[in-house]
């Protein structure tokens, strides 16, 4: 009898390890910012991703809060890789955190799908076959803003961004496309909320337009103070300062501002309509571009899982590279350095009833890739 039970137990163990379907399961580790300042971005990415994978029994997700601190993100990544044995990591919002986590993750043979941060280093020399960016390369939206400034006839821009890697990427991106001259160029302190001093400089500079990249709470302060200052210059910026999560806090000061984005609520395709509708009914608020990026990341993962097992890394990577999913952005493909080729739109802040939101005005850059493809040896 005892022999029989041991055999049975052994069989069960064998059976479970070789049971079909098991290889199709994917364990996802999501590290994102869920508390403190900037948590709105992480919450949107998480909610978008969870919406995309909702009801999919083959995906299990472990979500952890990085508190916007690089050291914590690194600890979480180590734990997820070593003890939770995740196959895929995703979720990081901030470029400095991505720089701390991504290289070690992909070198340990895990996939990393970025739903937001796209620092230039990871697109150029530091690119890796296991790293895919589903959002954009950091410079992209700013390049489109520079292109828009040309078409709007701006000749003399005043530009400002926070003094950190993504801020420098931003001004580089704008200058790469903007043909006019610069009335001034300022790096502000990261996390700065009061721009009285900078606004006084803008007033004195004789600029004909203002470009700024101040994500999250920084942009709220700037827009409100700028509109109170009585300066009547046109403002252009990337979508980060005008996304759904913060428009409410900026208020009417944002009305009419042109901003550039790879996604908008009114992009006309079925996948996007379904996403906007499902997101609203699931969470009771309008989605932001961050939510769309999280959603597309989830859909990309599902598309690859239907083609290959995650343990077969080469096949799974090929499946990811094909990007064979219906993106909320419509046309979407990966360039050689695993960053998107996509249209970037110019949007305008409008009022729909009482709610501030964005509508597409034109296509800023068509089938846009990034400037770092040639630096990537992969």
């Amino acid at each position: 009898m005892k022999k029989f039970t041991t055999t049975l137990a052994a069989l069960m163990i064998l059976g479970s390890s070789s049971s079909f379907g098991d290889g199709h399961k994917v364990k996802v580790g999501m590290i994102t910012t869920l508390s403190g300042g900037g948590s709105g971005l992480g919450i949107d990415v998480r909610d978008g991703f969870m919406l995309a994978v909702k009801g999919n029994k083959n995906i299990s997700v472990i979500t952890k809060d990085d508190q916007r601190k690089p050291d914590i993100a690194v600890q979480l990544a180590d734990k997820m890789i070593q003890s939770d044995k995740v196959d895929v990591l995703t979720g990081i919002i901030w470029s400095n955190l991505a720089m701390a986590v991504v290289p070690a993750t992909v070198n340990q043979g895990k996939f990393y799908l970025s739903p937001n941060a796209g620092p230039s280093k990871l697109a150029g020399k530091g690119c890796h076959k296991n790293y895919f960016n589903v959002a954009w390369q950091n410079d992209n939206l700013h390049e489109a803003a520079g292109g828009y400034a040309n078409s709007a006839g701006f000749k003399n821009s005043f530009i400002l961004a926070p003094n950190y890697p993504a801020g420098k990427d931003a001004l580089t991106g704008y200058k790469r496309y903007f043909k006019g001259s610069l009335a001034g160029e300022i790096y502000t302190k990261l996390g700065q909320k009061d721009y009285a001093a900078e606004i006084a400089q803008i007033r004195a500079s004789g600029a004909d337009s203002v470009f700024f990249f101040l994500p999250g709470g920084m942009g709220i302060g700037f827009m409100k103070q700028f509109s109170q200052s009585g300066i009547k210059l046109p403002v252009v910026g990337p979508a980060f300062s005008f996304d759904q999560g913060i428009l409410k806090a900026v208020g009417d000061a944002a009305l009419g501002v042109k901003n550039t984005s790879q996604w908008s609520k009114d992009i006309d395709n079925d996948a996007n309509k379904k996403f906007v509708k499902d997101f609203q009914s699931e969470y009771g608020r309008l989605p932001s571009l961050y939510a769309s990026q999280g959603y597309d990341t989830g859909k990309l993962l599902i598309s690859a899982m239907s083609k290959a097992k995650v343990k077969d890394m080469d096949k799974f990577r090929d499946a990811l590279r094909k990007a064979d999913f219906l993106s909320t952005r419509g046309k979407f493909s990966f360039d050689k350095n695993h960053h998107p080729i996509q249209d970037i739109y110019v949007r305008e802040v409008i009022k729909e009833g009482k709610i501030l939101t964005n509508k597409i005005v034109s296509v800023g850059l068509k089938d846009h890739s990034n400037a770092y493809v040639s630096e990537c040896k992969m």
Partner: protein
Amino acid sequence: MTSILFFEQLLNGMQFGTMLFLMSAGLTLIFGVMGLINLAHGSFYMIGAFSAALIASLTGSFWLALLASLSGAAIAGVLIEIIIIRRLYRRDHLDQVLATFALILLLSEGVRWCFGAFPLYLDIPKNLNGTLPILDDIIYSKYRLFIIFMGLLIAIGLYILIAKTRLGIRIRAGQNDRQMISALGVDISKLYTIVFALGASLAGLAGAMIGAIQSVEVGMGEPILILAFVVIVIGGIGSIKGAFIGSILVGVTDTIGRIFLPEILKAFMEPASATSVGSSIGSMLIYILMALILIIKPSGLFGKT
């Protein structure tokens, strides 16, 4: 660089300074009277801003919102003092730091739980919108002038309170000799609650006034808390006068340095690196100032040795 721009930046520095004063006055009073290091002071700034945003969205009145920020932060201050802070007075500073740090986390997550992770909307009243011409060529934001005015008003009010009233005498006595004043029959624990609530409400008012031109969001109080600590160290811990002078000094140094340092550096180096080096040094300037003052006066400008 024109003199107009310089004068405007000076006003900006003043405005920043008066707001810092509202934060640091409470911090320095609480430290001076009760010997408590209160890291959670920034949370009252946040509570004030959130109470104001809530009332503004319900009533539409900015003035009611300001009132709500004062009372909201004061109520929170009283509750927290009675429930938690009271137990910390006799502990050493490390325990106080740990406990009030825990309070920051609790209050931040509590506010996020109630209001959500997204920033709230709070705007300035219509009649303070726009600019006001002062002198010939200088135009300046009405609302920022209002902030400077309020800050000065409260500074005078606090001076009268501390120097001329019975409560002020008790506060000063509490600062000098805690045991003696309680031996004389003053209800010391009530006095502590009042001082703590006063400090909290000033921070709350600052949060609401600044929240209206910046953003009302979770964690907004911590960056300004650090500056408030710099201010009270410069001014001398426990001294309201020191807090006032220190605030204006820090406000003006920070604003002027941030703007003019890159301009000055442009004379020696190429513009791009001047901007980035200048803004880096600019953000260090107040700490350099603090270090210099502490070398000359180790207990701050008006601190007791």
